[in-house]
């Protein structure tokens, strides 16, 4: 019998193998994760809802199926869902008091698929309300603390999922990435975060933030784990007309492939004076590892980079203001006066950008700017296969350090928002630590539907470095 501690430090792959080989049961796996949540969540605040009873019931069912040698992709695996994923019969708040009492009547498509693959939902995770934030500090249910240093932010908005996976409270945490919200907590918590291509995973049943940039992904301990989850969630959904009909490749097979000869672009705009030296150094070291594996490093330029954030800010807040207008407190949820400060500010920004007299200057100009940014990337992908750059310009910061100034907080997204503007996939992977043991992430971006290629590069890098073996030491 393996003890709880060992079960919660397993990767998804190891857990699946252990279940298959009867080293432990799904009930034991779920129980060990729930007991860890009970021990540390009071402090870390990663979960807003815990589904203990239902999870244990599902685990008993899973064990019966495992005994019959069933081979579902995630059978018996405890996962955590970001609370802007709509779950049938389980409160789904988006961490906003507006939805404090909302119990959905249906499951998001991605949840239907995860459940069908045998995954077990152990709880719903905290976030910046509605997904509005880069640090986790805008939740109406309190801050999530970074497992690596409780005085620092986890990154957001998928703050709870980042902390939960990092702290061994779940094997997978789901997320949404509208301007960086999966990659940012992944980088600050030493886990892998995938923002898939826009439309690769269905948005149906995910509480909308900015409909033209919302990307539905997940946070995991390793690259293989991420590939396994995407192979379950990806694919066309008739309920979301923006999902692509492109075939879902065999990610697990492709990621083992050779990477020698691949060209990796290093955009100079991401390594300029605004980027902390420690972060840039970690990324350069990671690139050296890839060069040693036979990749060719190519210096490139994405000339419109400095406009990507303001263009994103206008498009995102415009769509936020439109999406949040549906909350009227009549059919579900509470009245509009329950919106928090950050939601109100974004609604105001977006409404202004779209309003008569300003729409040409802001909204339409940004949609044109978006075309120019997409062209930058397309030009770059003629020269290189993937682009590598930091996820954040700086290390995990302390609470309130940036939250006091909205503009300063918004500029945290400068390196992540471009992939949302362009729609391209991006994968954040651990790239080491600062001297004070604060995690650093590097992201790999590629053309639309190149998740398989990103996995291949990241997997090769991960096999050389294995940063995921480093775990935070938690205090109660």
């Amino acid at each position, binding site marked *: 019998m393996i003890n709880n501690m060992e079960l919660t430090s397993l990767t998804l792959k190891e857990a699946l193998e252990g279940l298959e080989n009867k080293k432990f049961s799904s009930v034991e796996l779920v129980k060990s994760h729930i007991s860890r949540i009970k021990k540390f969540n009071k402090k870390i605040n990663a979960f807003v809802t815990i589904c203990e009873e239902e999870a244990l019931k599902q685990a008993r069912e899973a064990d019966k199926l495992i005994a019959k040698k069933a081979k579902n992709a995630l059978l018996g695996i405890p996962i955590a869902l970001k609370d802007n994923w709509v779950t049938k019969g389980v409160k789904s708040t988006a961490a906003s008091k507006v939805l404090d009492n909302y*119990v959905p009547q*249906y499951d998001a498509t991605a949840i239907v698929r995860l459940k069908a693959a045998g995954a077990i939902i152990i709880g719903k995770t905290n976030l910046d309300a509605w997904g509005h934030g880069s640090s986790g500090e805008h939740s109406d249910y309190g801050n999530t603390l970074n497992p690596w240093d409780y005085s620092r932010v986890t990154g957001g908005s998928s703050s709870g999922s980042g902390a939960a996976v990092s702290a061994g409270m779940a094997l997978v945490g789901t997320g949404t990435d509208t301007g960086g919200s999966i990659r940012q907590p992944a980088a600050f918590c030493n886990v892998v975060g995938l923002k898939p291509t826009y*439309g690769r995973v269905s948005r149906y049943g995910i509480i909308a933030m900015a409909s033209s940039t919302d990307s539905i992904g997940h946070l995991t301990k390793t690259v293989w784990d991420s590939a396994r989850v995407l192979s379950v969630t990806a694919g066309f959904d008739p309920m979301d007309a923006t999902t692509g009909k492109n075939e879902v490749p065999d990610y697990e097979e492709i990621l083992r492939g050779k990477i020698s000869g691949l060209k990796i672009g290093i955009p100079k705009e991401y390594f300029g004076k605004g980027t902390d030296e420690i972060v840039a150094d970690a990324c350069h070291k990671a690139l050296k590892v890839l060069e040693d594996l036979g990749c060719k490093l190519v210096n490139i330029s994405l000339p419109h980079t400095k*406009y990507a954030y*303001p263009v994103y800010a206008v498009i995102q807040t415009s769509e936020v203001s439109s999406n949040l207008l549906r909350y009227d407190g009549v*059919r579900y949820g509470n009245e509009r006066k329950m919106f928090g400060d950050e939601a*109100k500010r974004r609604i105001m920004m977006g409404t*202004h950008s779209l*309003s008569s007299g300003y729409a040409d200057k802001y909204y339409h100009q940004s949609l044109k700017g978006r075309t120019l940014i997409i062209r930058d990337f397309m030009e770059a992908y003629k020269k290189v296969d993937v682009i590598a750059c930091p996820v954040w310009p700086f290390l995990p910061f302390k609470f309130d350090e940036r939250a006091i100034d909205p503009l300063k907080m918004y500029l945290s997204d400068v390196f992540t928002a471009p992939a949302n*503007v362009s729609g391209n996939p991006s994968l954040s992977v651990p790239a080491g630590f600062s001297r004070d043991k604060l995690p650093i992430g590097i992201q790999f971006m590629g053309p639309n539907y190149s998740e398989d290629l990103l996995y291949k590069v990241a997997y090769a890098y991960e096999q050389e470095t294995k940063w995921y073996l480093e775990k935070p030491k938690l205090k109660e």
Partner: protein
Amino acid sequence: MKKKTLLSVENVEHIADLAKLTLTQDEQKKYKEQLRRIFDYIDQISKLKTKKVIETSHPTNITNIFREDKIDESKILTQEEALSNAVKKKNGYFVVKAIF
């Protein structure tokens, strides 16, 4: 000298009205100041050369997605389910505030 974004309290009231938000006077003042700073920063997009550039509203260029005009009964909520989250309901209807 750089032209600054001008936003009056009246502008802020107008925006809040369009957005169906009720703001306190303190909030009006705060957002006026914050929006001014944020749009000062955003104003740099006016330097983008976009005269002959088309707009992108959707990043993967999928167009004309149609479906059969058929009802999918598996996606229909019962009246009871549809009303399950309503704060006020009467005789199977949502109760709303009078418009006129």
